[in-house]
């Protein structure tokens, strides 16, 4: 259903291999369904029509054709193949799906993709520079061992970048308060706070 106009920016890795496999598997049933292909869109009610959505994701343009019900999270994971953004609760309670939209951290599970038409989306895959150098926040999470299972980590990192950019990382108490929308079941919280402090200081040049 989705048409991807930009190649994946990741190099050859286990992750990109898995991503490609998942995307192909997801697309196959739709492409091979003759009943769907024979019905021209114009005769259907508007409720059954797909919507066109343009997104810039990690500085690459994407033109997607989606069911209007598709969340931004599902568009990223299932239609673009960027599975770094995680689905935790899918109800806005855990923060695992946090991405930046026009530079602001938001929950991609509670936003319909179509509402983000024309916007700039940054996911965890878009943080490292093209030479593979990690974003300071990614490096800080490694330096401080700020995760155990890692499932919440992409959301934590995106939220932490938003938190620092908003100016809400002035103290450890501030960081705890303004990062409270990101739940870590492994409870790596002290390490996460330490990582945010390091990346904040690096961003300030102190």
């Amino acid at each position, binding site marked *: 259903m989705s048409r991807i106009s930009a190649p994946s920016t990741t190099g050859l890795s286990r992750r990109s291999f898995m991503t490609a496999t998942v995307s192909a598997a997801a697309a196959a049933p739709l492409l091979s369904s003759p009943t769907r292909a024979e019905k021209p869109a114009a005769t259907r009610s508007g409720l059954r029509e797909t919507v066109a959505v343009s997104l810039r994701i990690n500085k690459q343009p994407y033109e997607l054709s989606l069911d209007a019900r598709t969340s931004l999270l599902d568009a990223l994971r299932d239609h673009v193949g960027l599975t770094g953004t995680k689905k935790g609760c899918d109800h806005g309670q855990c923060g695992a799906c946090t991405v930046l939209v026009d530079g602001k951290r938001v929950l991609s599970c509670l936003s319909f993709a179509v509402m983000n038409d024309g916007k700039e989306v940054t996911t965890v895959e878009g943080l490292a520079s093209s030479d593979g150098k990690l974003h300071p926040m990614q490096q800080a999470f490694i330096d401080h061992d700020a995760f155990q299972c890692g499932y919440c980590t992409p959301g934590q990192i995106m939220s932490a970048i*938003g938190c620092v950019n*908003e100016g809400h990382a002035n103290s450890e108490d501030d960081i705890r308060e303004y990062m409270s929308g990101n739940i870590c079941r492994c409870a790596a919280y002290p390490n996460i706070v330490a990582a945010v402090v390091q990346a904040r200081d690096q961003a300030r040049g102190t």
Partner: protein
Amino acid sequence: MRPFIYERPTDVSAAVAIASRFTTEDDHPTRANAQFIAGGTNLADYMKLGVAAPNRLLDLNRLEEPALRQIRVTDDGVRFGALVRMGEAADHGEVKRRYPVIADSLRLAASGQIRNMASLAGNMLQRTRCEYFREPSWACNKRVPGSGCAAMEGFNRQHAVLGASDACIATYHGDFAQALIALDAVIRAEGSRGAREIPFARLHRLPRDTPHIETDLAADEIITAIEVPALPWARRSRYLKIRDRESYAFALASAAVALDLDGDSVREARIALGGLATVPWRAGEAEAALQGKKLDEASAGAAADAAFAGAEPRQHNAFKVELGKRTLVRALLETRDMKV
């Protein structure tokens, strides 16, 4: 999720026109076929759960009127455009300085991500998180009129002790609304029958025997602005929120307080209570009890007793009466001691 048609009107009158074409006068906004969406943090969640099922979604985020996105603070008061995000209002320097209770109520609500998404008008209109309302297999008079209320005999620890009825005990969870009702805010709305002002205190309806009717709004009416009148002594105001965990949780009990003090004694008090009632709750009896009195632990306690004189606890939420009183006493004393 039920399929929906997505539309993106570019000004308020166009949005009203579409809504009015696809709704009737008898439709209530939360049950209409055509519904408005702004941040989506509440509506998208309820559409996923099957609690809300519009078949036409009107996205208000592309409305072009600049005032919808502006905060204007003047000596007459503050005017918030309806599409201002919670986080922007919480961080606004003049709002923090002149109306700390407003900034606090927003800062202590939801999470950083949700505050970046949720509009102020949407936040005011947020629907209850009653577990029995959220899950469509339970009986719920608010979700399906006449189906009963599973919360009455259920696990009602989170539920309201004020403003409940035999049909519904679901809590109104908003925080911002408590600051607004305490400060006599006014809502501006536009619909097919024209523009009007609604005192914030009249926006939400008590559940009585029609809990599915939540507000005074028509299905084609859009809130465009929230106005809070000037109140110079609102610099002495705060919002105290008590929760099961320290952050990112709904209030078990909260208090919005603003005090006009003459030395130790109270010229005027404004008090609202959150997490305890079915609608935003102004505690007029507590305000009256304090007027002209020296504010100390005893008079604050008497005011709290007055606020909860009509409380109706259920099996699991009786603790909220005492918690609510203590929350109000602490909020009053902390507000008294603010350096302004």
